[in-house]
């Protein structure tokens, strides 16, 4: 083994490697909204002075700002998780018509297996729908290389380029040697209303341009080095891309491969040429039959995975079964469920909502964990902002005792318009903004109401209570949820009031505020074994074999919520 490492050897995740590659290729602007598994792309870029970066309020804003930077001449990058791109679909679809000026890469990080998302949609289909090229690396090292190709391809063909990662690539680390940044001067911006003003007459002409572009991209795809034939043993030939390529390579190292790094427009002629040189073609891909349909459309006889494999991630050990034409075996053994951290201020809010038997519309964030047993006090979770608007609709049908919960970052992302909609349309319901001062679930990123930017600079802080009042809500309360009695009285009052109200439950996230107070003690003689304390689902409270509970002093933060829920005084705070 070679022992002399280059000083430029790094050990980077797919997200970081992609960011590094874009940086090397003269990137000047990047925007995103945090979302697993894409968040680390912007975090990495924010440490580079040459790149102007921002957490935008949501993905639509991030996309538009990035597109604007590209039109004006800066190499630019947008990144989000798969469902984040849904929020940016409006500008995405029309940006295919306008095209770009300087290179513009749209990164989507999909989540096969739904590790941390609300669905597992396959965003390769978006490339076809939007009529933009699709580039897919298989590994972190390739992510670094392919993003460079994507930036120059974007300029060459005057189009946004969709670059797709999946969780397994975004969060795999690999060692690689990195290079220096190329300084690429900004492109000149010229006013061009026919190209950039999409009124019907111009848009019609641009659609003609777009279709011509697709034909040229088709030819590029056929000759692109990103679509690589590896001819070895001719018995079996895989047509595959992304991480699936590596799974097949692991299990069949001597097979032949058509590795697709440029998946749309699909290189049909190359696929046919490949098929003619192997005995059996196997199409291998995660999620939807995207390549499979294209291969079949090209008239190639092939084997593909059974539909049971469209659900969830692939794994290397599945490949032989897929080749044999078998369906997916049932998975055994379930992963441990996550819980809110000890001392998490959300826990108190769900304790109260459960007690008051409210119907609760939920949203996306750590607090979605309030749906899990034994809490069971969050009853819908669909999309960002739904905690307000879905509640609005439910409230119309159900009439009373309805609440919606939404995080502070999520509220700024897409809750504000929903709140104005409620005021305008005379809705009733209690909106609870769980304001822990950060975007917690994705790794504690700042947002407008924190008063800090991605580069940790101070900025004008958005005041949520002033904003809610300005939207037209008269009843706006700010409550510290760590005082259970005050919180319960406040929520009860607003639920009974049966009007539109906002409660801002404000206390810092325990991953940021690491202060700890004294650990409460349990007194066996007072414990009636009612287990109300276990109902708050705190990982620091442990039921022992003798039926009594104890508190793990290593992880307890001393929040005293358990002290407040115990009706018999069996758990007592040392401070009192």
């Amino acid at each position, binding site marked *: *083994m070679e022992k002399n*490492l280059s000083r430029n050897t790094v050990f980077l995740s797919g997200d970081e490697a992609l960011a590094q590659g874009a940086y090397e290729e003269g990137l000047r602007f990047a925007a995103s909204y945090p979302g697993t598994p894409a968040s680390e792309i912007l975090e990495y870029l924010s440490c580079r002075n040459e790149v102007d970066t921002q957490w935008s309020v949501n993905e639509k804003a991030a996309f538009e700002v990035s597109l604007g930077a590209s039109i004006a001449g800066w190499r630019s990058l947008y990144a989000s998780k798969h469902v984040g791109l849904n929020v940016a679909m409006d500008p995405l679809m029309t940006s295919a018509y306008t095209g770009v000026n300087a290179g513009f890469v749209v990164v989507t990080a999909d989540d096969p297996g739904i590790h*941390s998302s609300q669905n597992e949609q396959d965003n390769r289909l978006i490339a076809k729908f939007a009529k933009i090229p699709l580039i897919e690396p298989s590994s972190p090292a390739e992510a670094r290389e392919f993003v460079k190709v994507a930036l120059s391809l974007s300029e060459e063909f005057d189009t946004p380029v969709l670059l797709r990662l999946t969780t397994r690539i975004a969060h795999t680390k690999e060692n690689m040697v990195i290079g220096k940044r190329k300084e690429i001067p900004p492109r000149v911006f010229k006013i061009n209303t026919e190209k950039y003003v999409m009124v019907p007459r111009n848009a019609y002409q641009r659609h003609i341009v777009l279709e011509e572009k697709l034909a040229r991209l088709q030819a590029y795809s056929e000759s692109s080095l990103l679509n690589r034939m590896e001819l070895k043993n001719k018995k079996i030939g895989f047509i595959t891309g992304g991480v699936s390529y590596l*799974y097949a390579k692991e*299990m069949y190292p001597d097979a032949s491969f058509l590795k697709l790094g440029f998946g749309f427009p699909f290189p049909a002629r190359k696929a046919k040429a490949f098929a003619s040189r192997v005995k059996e073609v196997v199409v291998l891909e995660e999620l939807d039959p995207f390549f499979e349909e294209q291969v079949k459309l090209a008239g190639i006889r092939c084997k593909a995975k059974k539909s049971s494999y469209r659900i969830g991630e692939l794994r290397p050990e599945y490949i032989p079964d897929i080749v044999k034409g078998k369906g997916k075996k049932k998975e055994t053994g379930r992963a441990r469920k*996550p*819980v809110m951290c000890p001392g998490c201020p959300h826990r108190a809010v769900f304790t109260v909502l459960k007690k008051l038997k409210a119907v609760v519309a939920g949203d996306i964030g*750590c607090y979605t964990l309030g749906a899990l047993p034994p809490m069971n006090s969050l009853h819908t979770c669909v999309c960002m902002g739904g905690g307000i608007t879905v509640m609005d609709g439910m409230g119309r049908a159900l009439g009373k005792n309805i609440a919606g919960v939404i995080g502070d970052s999520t509220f700024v992302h897409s809750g504000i318009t929903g709140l104005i909609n409620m005021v305008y349309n005379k809705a009733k319901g209690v909106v609870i903004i769980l304001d822990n001062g950060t975007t917690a679930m994705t790794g504690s990123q700042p947002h407008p109401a924190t008063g800090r930017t991605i580069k940790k600079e101070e900025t004008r802080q958005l005041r949520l209570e002033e904003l809610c009042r300005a939207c037209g809500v008269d009843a706006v309360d700010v409550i510290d949820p760590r005082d259970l009695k005050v919180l319960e009285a406040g929520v009860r009052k607003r639920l009974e009031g049966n009007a539109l109200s906002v409660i801002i439950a404000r206390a810092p996230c325990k*991953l940021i505020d690491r202060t700890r107070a004294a650990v409460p003690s349990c007194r066996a003689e007072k414990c009636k074994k009612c287990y109300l304390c276990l109902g708050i689902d705190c990982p620091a409270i442990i039921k022992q074999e003798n039926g009594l509970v104890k508190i793990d002093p290593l992880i307890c933060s001393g929040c005293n919520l358990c002290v407040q829920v115990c009706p018999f005084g069996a758990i007592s705070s040392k401070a009192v």
Partner: protein
Amino acid sequence: MKKQNTVNILFCGRGGQGVLAAAEICGWAAVLSGFHVKKSEVHGMSQRGGSVESHLRFGKEVFSPLIPKGEADIIVSFDGEEFARLKGFLKKDGIGLADGVNRGEKELKDQRRYLNVFVLGALSRHLLIDEHRWLEAIEIVFAGKSPQKNKDVFLKGREHGAGTKEMRYDLE
């Protein structure tokens, strides 16, 4: 000596136990030794007490970021339930390294938060990676966060693991 292309180590436990940091150090130690390394894990829930697993593979050239079932040379487990869930990944003659945690807890007492590097010390005895590579890796991963204390605990764990046979492998 059995020839194999990669060394496969699966780290598992619960969020907050330092599983990911242990895998990161081991990954760097392999990088510094000149191997091609892939380490795969899923973030998001790791700080919220959920299951945590990290697949680490190194060799001349690594393809899949995931260890195929039945191919792990070693499972380093910080939690009995997680080990039970994932033991299907272990090779027939693979090593289940679960006792390092118990020994470490006895040894470290109130310094339980260094348990992960103690266990790593025990693991290091099974791998043909020089001691100074491990220490260098700890410096990189804990840069600015008391690397010396971590190195001391690592060496303590390594002492405890003394006498264990090195895994017999010959990377092609």
